[in-house]
């Protein structure tokens, strides 16, 4: 936490007496704090609510939990304590991926499975823009599933091919949608190793976001290699670092029918590991999708 001098606090208080409260979470950046205040003012009308929001921000509550929503691509999703807030990195790769997915799939021909769905951002963004697709999602947390169902309603997809179930994929992968084979599996698993958690996460994340959605190392990538690879034709998994990418790529290196790759985010960090069958059973051209996805 940066120390902010009383002189600066006083000078911003002259602009708006609520600004000093926002300054701490913006690490002292005045224009960021002003921006945040204008968002808060836009979305909350009542002066008391605005004051309360600034006080909560001073206590490091994520802005998205205060305003109760987070934009994700074309959607405006609900967020709630107990469920991870969608990150811009996820939005970025997810929207890139959707732009590459074939537009004209015959009804029910393209099946997507979203694991560790959380708020359902990835699943719902796909279902929203590619309405013919069948989208199924899984999460362990009952809170996440409840929120996901609310989000399905909010986005207006309740009458479409979106399903969600609560299940533990690390224990019961073989029983989840056991009759289905998928065209694409997406997943944003927890990927912060527990020894890095305290050191690398910001205070706000540590205090208010669910550890269940954050802390894990290679479990989910092992789970992918063991259970999901035989049941899908392609996958995109978000990663936290290069080690996790390499783990997946090495795990598939002996399997010549799988092609793998890494996607970087706009901060030049490895953000996704993806893989696809070069000669799938279906007629979908994964080479075309993922060739343009990686760049």
């Amino acid at each position, binding site marked *: 936490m940066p120390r902010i001098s009383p002189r600066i606090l006083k000078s911003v208080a002259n602009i708006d007496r609520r600004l000093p409260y926002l300054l701490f979470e913006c690490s002292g950046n005045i224009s*960021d704090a002003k*921006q*945040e205040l204008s*968002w808060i003012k836009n979305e909350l009308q009542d002066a008391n609510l605005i004051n309360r929001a600034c006080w909560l921000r001073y206590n490091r509550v*994520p*802005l*998205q939990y205060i305003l109760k929503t*987070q*934009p994700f*691509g*074309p959607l*405006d999703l609900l967020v709630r304590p107990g469920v*991870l*807030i969608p*990150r*811009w*990195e996820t*939005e*970025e790769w997810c929207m890139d991926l959707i732009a590459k997915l074939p537009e004209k799939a015959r009804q029910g021909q393209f099946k997507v499975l979203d694991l560790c769905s959380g708020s359902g951002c990835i699943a719902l963004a796909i279902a929203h823009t590619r309405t013919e697709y069948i989208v199924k999602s899984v999460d362990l947390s009952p809170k996440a599933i409840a929120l996901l169902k609310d989000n399905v309603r909010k986005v207006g997809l309740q009458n479409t091919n979106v399903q969600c179930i609560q299940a533990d994929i690390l224990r019961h992968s073989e029983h989840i949608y056991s009759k289905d084979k998928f065209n694409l599996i997406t997943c944003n698993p*927890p*990927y*912060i190793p527990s020894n890095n958690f305290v050191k*690398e*996460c*910001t205070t*706000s*994340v540590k205090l208010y*976001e669910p550890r269940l*959605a*954050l802390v894990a190392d290679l479990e989910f990538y092992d789970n992918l290699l063991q259970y999901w690879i035989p049941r899908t034709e392609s996958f995109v998994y*978000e990663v*936290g670092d290069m080690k996790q990418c390499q783990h997946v790529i090495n795990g598939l290196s002996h399997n010549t029918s799988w092609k793998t790759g890494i996607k970087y*985010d*706009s*901060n030049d*960090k490895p*953000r996704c590991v993806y893989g696809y069958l070069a000669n799938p059973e279906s007629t979908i051209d994964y080479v075309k999708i993922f060739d343009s996805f990686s760049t």
Partner: protein
Amino acid sequence: MFGITVKTIPAVRLAITYRMLSSSIPQTIKKSKMPPRPKFTDDMERDIEEKFLHGGRGPGGQKINKCNSKVQLRHVPTGIVVDCQATRSRDQNRKIAREKLALRLAQWENGDQPIERELAKIQWEQQSKRSKERKAKSKHREAQEQRQQQKLQQTIEEKQLLKSLLEQ
């Protein structure tokens, strides 16, 4: 304003009267009939470089929760750069940044002068300000007249009362 020459050269007088007329009765602008906003075309889309800025260094992904997403557009042929982080939504910011760039390009093509729409906007603002003033003035005048009339009536009534009292 009227120089000595005006008496001798009628053409100049005509020009001045004309100018006076045009300056005292400006062309009215309707809000619904403004010159159009400059459009962001597909050609421009091909010419731009888009960048997303999230405060650079440090950890990313799940480790940090940033709520801002800044979009920066660079129009390569002219080197004009615009950015936008007005909303929390990246989609929205991208749209706004494109509108901004279209406006800047239109200004650039106009030799860094304000474009037609901006001029119209300024005129519209002046016009609405003037009409507001006019309305306020006429309201005051009406109220004043009413007050005077009331006063007049009151004095007449008082006079009549006095008269009737004196006659008794």
